């Protein structure tokens, strides 16, 4: 295949497909085993300094914030982040000094809520390096190639742009049409946290609403930690097996974490906590403010339950549930 152009972004998360098959053969259990553990243990076992991290969900939707706080609490360092429309998660991890490299489809912003003061400050000062650019479909299809066990996925995006020049993609001549085609390299994150509404103790998980790119991500990432609103009996999964989005053999750990995406949105269960997000966006305008936020809500809370008490406990969560369900307030 004739190569017409090569992006000069750093290739992150790639493995030779045979090497990854060997890794899967050695490391992923095909046995139904109880994988329940505490979040502290899951983060300590599966997140290593220097790892390449990809979070499930999208923007402020269904992101395992409980895992993000625990990664900060355990002071993990040197992580590379998949900025696959990474918003609150990457903003906090960059501000806390856990992430110092990022591949960007979308980062440093909070969509409609504006730009991220903290992560922008760090990246503009050189404290976090953008190693490559891509797009949302670019990431999506890097995961698709990985889950299929093939080295790349052809696509018709990125072509002709500086996004491609700063990406890890290449352009080749399509042997059939003769037209230039983008080749997106497979991407196997070292570890991924995916938050779901329910799973069983083996990790068989259901997702309500849009699955976003978690179907592919769960199959691409080497280690997958499921955080879940509730752990349900195996029978409930087996009664409707067509609803299983992520089966047990992909999953390395199961952590029960009700309200685990606060202050983000858990579709059909609870809405964004706009007050809390605004508090972070306001407080993180200065490094001191960001540090105070972490002292209060991360280091000052021994675990996620203690955090939920700090943000207003049961009353606040009930309010967010009503907003999500479009129910009258008060």
């Amino acid at each position, binding site marked *: 295949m004739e190569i017409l152009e090569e992006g000069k972004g750093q290739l992150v998360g790639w493995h030779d497909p045979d090497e990854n098959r060997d890794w899967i053969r050695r490391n992923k259990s095909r046995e139904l085993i109880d994988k329940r553990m505490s979040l502290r243990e899951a983060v300590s076992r599966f997140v290593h300094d220097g790892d390449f991290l990809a979070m499930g*969900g*999208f*923007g*402020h*939707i*269904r992101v395992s914030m409980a895992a993000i706080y625990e990664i900060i609490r355990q002071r993990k360092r040197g992580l590379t982040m998949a*900025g696959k*429309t990474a918003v609150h998660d990457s903003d906090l991890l960059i501000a806390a000094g856990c992430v110092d490299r990022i591949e*960007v*489809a*979308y*980062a*440093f*912003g909070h*969509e*409609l809520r504006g*730009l991220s003061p903290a992560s*922008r400050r760090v*990246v*503009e000062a*050189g404290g976090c390096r*953008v190693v490559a*650019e*891509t*797009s*949302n*479909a*670019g990431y*999506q*299809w890097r995961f*698709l190639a990985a889950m299929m066990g093939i080295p790349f996925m052809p*696509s*018709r*995006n*990125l*072509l*002709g*742009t*500086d*996004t491609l020049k*700063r990406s890890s993609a290449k*352009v080749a001549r*399509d042997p059939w049409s003769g*037209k*230039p*085609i*983008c080749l997106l390299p497979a991407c196997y994150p070292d570890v991924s946290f995916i938050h779901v509404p329910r799973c069983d103790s083996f990790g068989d998980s259901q997702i309500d*609403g*849009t*699955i*976003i*790119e978690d*179907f*592919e991500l769960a199959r691409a990432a080497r280690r997958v930690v499921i955080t879940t609103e509730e752990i349900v009996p195996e029978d409930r999964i087996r009664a409707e097996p067509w609803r299983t989005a992520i089966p047990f053999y992909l999953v390395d750990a199961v952590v029960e974490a009700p309200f685990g995406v606060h202050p983000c*949105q858990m*579709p*059909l269960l609870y809405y*964004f906590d706009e007050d809390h997000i605004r508090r972070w966006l306001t407080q993180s305008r200065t490094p001191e403010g960001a540090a105070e936020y972490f002292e209060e809500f991360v280091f000052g809370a021994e675990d996620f339950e203690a955090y939920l008490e700090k943000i207003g406990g049961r009353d606040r969560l009930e309010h967010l549930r009503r907003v*999500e369900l*479009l129910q009258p307030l008060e």
Partner: protein
Amino acid sequence: MPEPTDYSPTELLACVASRLLEPGTSVFVGTGLPMIAAMLAQRTHAPGLLIIFEAGGIGPQVPVLPISVGDSRTFYRAVGASSMHDVMSISQAGYLDFGFLGAAQIDRFGNINTTVIGPYENPTVRLPGSGGANDVGSFCHRTIVVMRQDSRKFVEKAEFITTPGYLTGPGARERAGLARASGPYRVITQLGVYGFDEATKELQLLALHPGVTLDDVRAQSGYAVRVAEPTSVTQPPSARDREILREIDPTGLVIRRQG
């Protein structure tokens, strides 16, 4: 009864964008003003408009303005709640007629920068990057850009091409391997509406908003923007349009922002 003239700039932009969406078509929308424009079109001239969101929301009857393109409101009473792979694939395959984009910078061939201002390695301002913009700009048959115009944003050459417009001119998209007959269709700013010259693929002014002059356009452009002859004047929002916009965005999240 004369129509009121005290509409906000954002109300005008939403109406102008909305009218471009033709009945019987599909549109890929992002957060903010594009969502409002698509929702307004559904409630006026294009009730069957197929709205598609990046995270997998397909054909929703959106109850209130979603905050994010993955928000559960994006699949409220939808015909489908699937995945990004599905939505990006059907876009690439040709099912999406219109796509909306924002821009920090746009150049004379409609190329868009949302990545960086200043040197790439040592940025003055680091912006969020492509998100789904490069995909929308590569895959949709016609893209509509909604942005605020000033002399640093309307430039001869974008500092960084995040999302492809017509690249270097006629035929450049096809030479790069992008889909045939795709590309930017309209650019809507607080001053007017722009299209692209058929022969040169250059941005050109098609219509001014009420009360805006050519001098205003020149003052807010970083280079000599082409002007089509004759230019028209955009139709302001009707009282009914404004009523619907208030229903769509009751808290003024987007509508009360500065256009």
